[in-house]
């Protein structure tokens, strides 16, 4: 068996080099085809009819008028929406119409007559007492470790605060949807998905057809953030419309429906008490938390977060049911919220102790799984942001209405590689293909695969044909939980090494050596360390005659063989300015310090961090699903009132990837989730540091900032 391990840092020719995204040109030139861009001959356009009420019973559905309309090919009532069905949230799919044009489909959708019996709803969980009064709470029970009562009695200082983050949406730029062409017993399926290898099986199961008959294709996708694993009800409806009409059908959710039902991140609220010694050592934690993820309620946040070994804890959690569509995994599920709750409580404790929060975080680092990593990262981030020079006790005393402050957040994540299979084909003309049933969400997966193959085969990145996005390629796991890069890099490494070994067997006799004495470097197969005893790559491949080499490689998560691993820490620090007259917060800088194992492509890895920091800024300052108590509907299912950060809002993001040798030698670790975790806490603490008072809830919109300032002066 070849030695699959990664080459030593000094021997790497491709891995670790800043490499342009291999699909950058097709994306920047508008040539990249996403599912939303697929157009098939004779394709029909579908529009959906959804329930406008947050809670209702369907009395009747009359599709007859719609069916008779010009250009309408078929009307389909969704499975699970028959009359008598109790609808539990607004946006529930009732029917879909397929027509010759999108305009006609929308007209016909409006002509579908649905009668409802409207039932009482409950949609806002921020006020727990109201949820209790409405009978919408499910206490999760108390969890006690150690002796919290004694700890709070013994404490020199006890701090207390209430903190919360609301539900936010995935808001994937490419909406949820698909094109489906059901011909005979074959289904051609163009979804926008994080699960190329498995989504076809899910669709087949729902339709009762053999999984082998579903062909999934996806070259590019406009992000998922955890909301695009399943075919969903609209995928099944689209397939049925295609079967019914015998024509390809395109069904994408309009933006408002998308935001109502196609994914959201649960809220998390908590009242937290901390007990500490005078020197800053935390000795007790008490929290009463509540959250919602729709009708199932919301799970308990993983608090205390990162500082998991704080002794003497009492945790109470309450799940709140609201009439809204169910939560979906959202980039690092529950972690950003838990980081926010924990780090804000610790920052408030530091203030009460009269201590620099940086010292408090370091003081208690032994409660984390990686004390040395966090201490190093805290110091590194402090150095990069200029903590010593710029930090001041709470409340910027500078005259004027612009107040500046700094804050800290921390995070952790797993990120080990998923099950991934790769096939490497080497052709007699020298062509190299690597095939994986994987997907590139915009993270740079395609590029990373090409780089690993190029490194192993001694070829330039451009010589590798990466074939992903098709379920006919070998099975590769879904892209969730930062598992992709570890999985695909390891399987590609193994497949390409296995293929290379076969090629060495052909070349060795020609060079008069044994196969194990060969290496692939700089576009040739050569005797190890002797570039003169060599055969050019093309000449070597010519020896294959009419055959091709086709070898597999697998990443087995149970035995990653040192190629990938999980478990990272990250620290972020924010530098903000707050205008105390308008309540507007500006991000000056956000420092991201992240350990991430061996980094294959620093360029796209940094982009991941930039993007994650941006999402933290969005959640800290702008994003919020606003539900109307009266109508039970989302008030901002669009992009003008559901705010996200634009270019002028971002400030300067400083990324420091902690790739010291002790991290590099751990192998590849996923980087999708880790940097999205600490930012909200860092920004919230920086705002508190600037204005001297905590804005208890995010997003910290100007109204909340001004209200907090008013409470201080009252």
């Amino acid at each position, binding site marked *: 068996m070849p030695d699959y391990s990664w080459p030593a840092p000094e021997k790497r020719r491709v891995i670790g080099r800043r490499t*342009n*995204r291999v*699909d*950058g*040109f097709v*994306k*920047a*030139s*508008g*040539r*990249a*085809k*996403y599912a*939303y*861009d697929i*157009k098939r001959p004779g394709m029909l*356009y579908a529009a959906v009819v959804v329930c406008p009420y947050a809670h209702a019973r369907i009395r009747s559905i009359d599709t007859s008028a719609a069916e008779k309309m010009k250009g309408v090919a078929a009307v389909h009532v969704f499975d699970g929406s028959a009359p008598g069905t109790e609808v539990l949230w607004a946006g529930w799919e009732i029917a879909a119409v397929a027509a010759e*044009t*999108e*305009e006609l489909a929308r007209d016909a959708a409006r002509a579908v007559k649905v009668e409802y019996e409207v039932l009482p709803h409950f949609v806002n969980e921020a006020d727990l007492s109201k949820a209790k009064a409405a009978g919408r709470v499910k206490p999760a029970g108390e969890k006690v470790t150690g002796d919290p009562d004694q700890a709070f009695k013994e404490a020199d200082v006890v701090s207390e605060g209430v903190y919360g983050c609301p539900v936010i949406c995935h*808001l*994937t*730029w*490419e*909406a949820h949807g698909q094109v489906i062409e059901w011909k005979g017993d074959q289904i051609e399926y163009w979804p926008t998905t994080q699960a190329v290898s498995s989504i076809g099986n899910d669709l087949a199961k729902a339709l009762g057809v053999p999984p082998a008959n579903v062909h999934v294709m996806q070259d*590019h*996708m*406009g*992000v998922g953030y955890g909301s695009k694993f399943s075919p969903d009800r609209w995928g099944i409806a689209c397939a049925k419309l295609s079967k019914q009409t015998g024509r390809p059908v395109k069904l994408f959710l*309009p*933006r408002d429906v998308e935001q109502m039902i196609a994914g959201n991140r649960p809220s998390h609220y908590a009242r937290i008490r901390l007990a500490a010694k005078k020197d800053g050592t935390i000795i007790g934690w008490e929290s009463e938390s509540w959250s919602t993820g729709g009708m199932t309620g919301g799970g308990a946040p993983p608090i205390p977060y990162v500082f998991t070994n704080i002794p003497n804890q009492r945790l109470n959690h309450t799940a709140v049911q609201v009439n809204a569509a169910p939560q979906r995994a959202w980039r690092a599920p529950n972690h950003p919220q838990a980081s926010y709750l924990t780090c804000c409580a610790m920052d408030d404790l530091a203030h009460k102790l009269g201590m620099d929060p940086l010292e408090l975080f370091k003081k208690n680092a032994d409660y984390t799984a990686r004390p040395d990593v966090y201490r190093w990262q805290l110091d590194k981030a402090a150095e990069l942001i200029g903590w010593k020079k710029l930090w001041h006790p709470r409340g910027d005393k500078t005259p004027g209405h612009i107040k500046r402050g700094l804050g800290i957040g921390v995070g952790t994540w797993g990120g080990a590689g998923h099950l991934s299979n790769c096939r490497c084909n080497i052709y007699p003309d020298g062509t190299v293909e690597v095939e994986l049933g994987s997907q590139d*969400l*915009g*993270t*740079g997966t395609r590029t990373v695969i090409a780089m690993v193959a190029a490194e192993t085969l001694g070829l330039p990145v451009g010589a590798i044909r990466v074939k992903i996005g098709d379920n006919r390629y070998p099975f590769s796991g879904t892209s969730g939980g930062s598992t992709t890069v570890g999985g695909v890099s390891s399987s590609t490494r193994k497949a390409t090494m296995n293929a290379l070994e076969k090629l060495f067997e052909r070349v060795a006799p020609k060079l008069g050596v044994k196969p194990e004495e060969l290496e692939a470097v700089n576009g040739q197969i050569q005797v190890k360390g002797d570039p003169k005893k060599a055969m050019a790559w093309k000449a070597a491949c010519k020896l294959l005659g009419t055959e091709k080499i086709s070898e597999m490689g697998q990443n087995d998560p149970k035995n990653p063989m040192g190629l990938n691993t999980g478990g990272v820490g990250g620290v972020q620090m924010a530098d903000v300015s707050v205008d105390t007259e308008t309540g507007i917060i500006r991000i000056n800088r956000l420092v991201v310090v992240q350990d991430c194992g061996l980094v294959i492509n620093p*360029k*796209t890895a*940094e*982009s*991941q961090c*930039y*993007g*994650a*920091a*941006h*999402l933290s800024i969005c959640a800290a300052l702008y994003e919020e699903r606003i539900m109307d108590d009266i109508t039970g509907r989302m008030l901002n299912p*669009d*992009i*003008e009132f559901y705010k*996200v*950060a*634009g*270019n*002028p809002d*971002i400030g300067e*993001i400083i990324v420091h990837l902690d790739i010291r040798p002790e991290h590099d030698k751990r192998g590849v670790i996923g980087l999708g989730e880790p940097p999205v975790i600490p930012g909200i806490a860092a920004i919230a603490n920086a705002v508190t540091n600037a204005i001297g008072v905590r804005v208890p809830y995010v997003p910290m919109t100007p109204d909340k900032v001004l209200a907090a300032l008013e409470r201080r002066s009252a």
Partner: protein
Amino acid sequence: MSTIKKPPEPKTEPGAGVSRRGFIRDVSLGTGALGVALTPGAARAVAPALMGPGPVPVTLTINGKPHKLELEPRVTLLDALRNYLDYTGAKRVCDRGTCGACTVLMDGKPVYACSILAIDAQGKNIQTIESLALSPQPDPLIRAFVNNDGMQCGFCTPGFVMAAKAFLAENPNPTMEQIKRAFGGNLCRCGSYNGIRRAILEAAKAAQGGKNA
């Protein structure tokens, strides 16, 4: 100008709410009628007239090439490009003039294609992202976006590139500070703003031939 088929009819559904599409349709019908009335030689006595609601002949000049289509007057320029032709570089994201993913140039000015009716884009020179990579020497902006990783999922990228194209035509020598402020009309969900800013600066320098480097 498209054929005018029949005089306006009163709205038959007084209860119908005002949708954005309905709103821009009405507004642009008004503009269209005004345009006709002001055309020299046109009979001023003719009452404001209605096109549609069925398909009407529409000619769009896209990247210098005329395209003859039959479209309902309510079809937006974006949907005409994407659904009735195959110019899918411009993306539909917000579909209501917020995010800029559908940005194309109309007579050199950046516009949101989702918020312009195809009938109103007639006689204009429409330039889409596809025009930037037609020759073997693609627009320097494309190379700059790749070099600076000014994208992740890439869904907003064509809109940014077209907005940048228009921006650089007016500001050939921008500072980073100007670039930061200029692109508030395009949004990126992945958060690629750092790379986008650097890309635009690099493209400007490349176009200047290094004069201001």
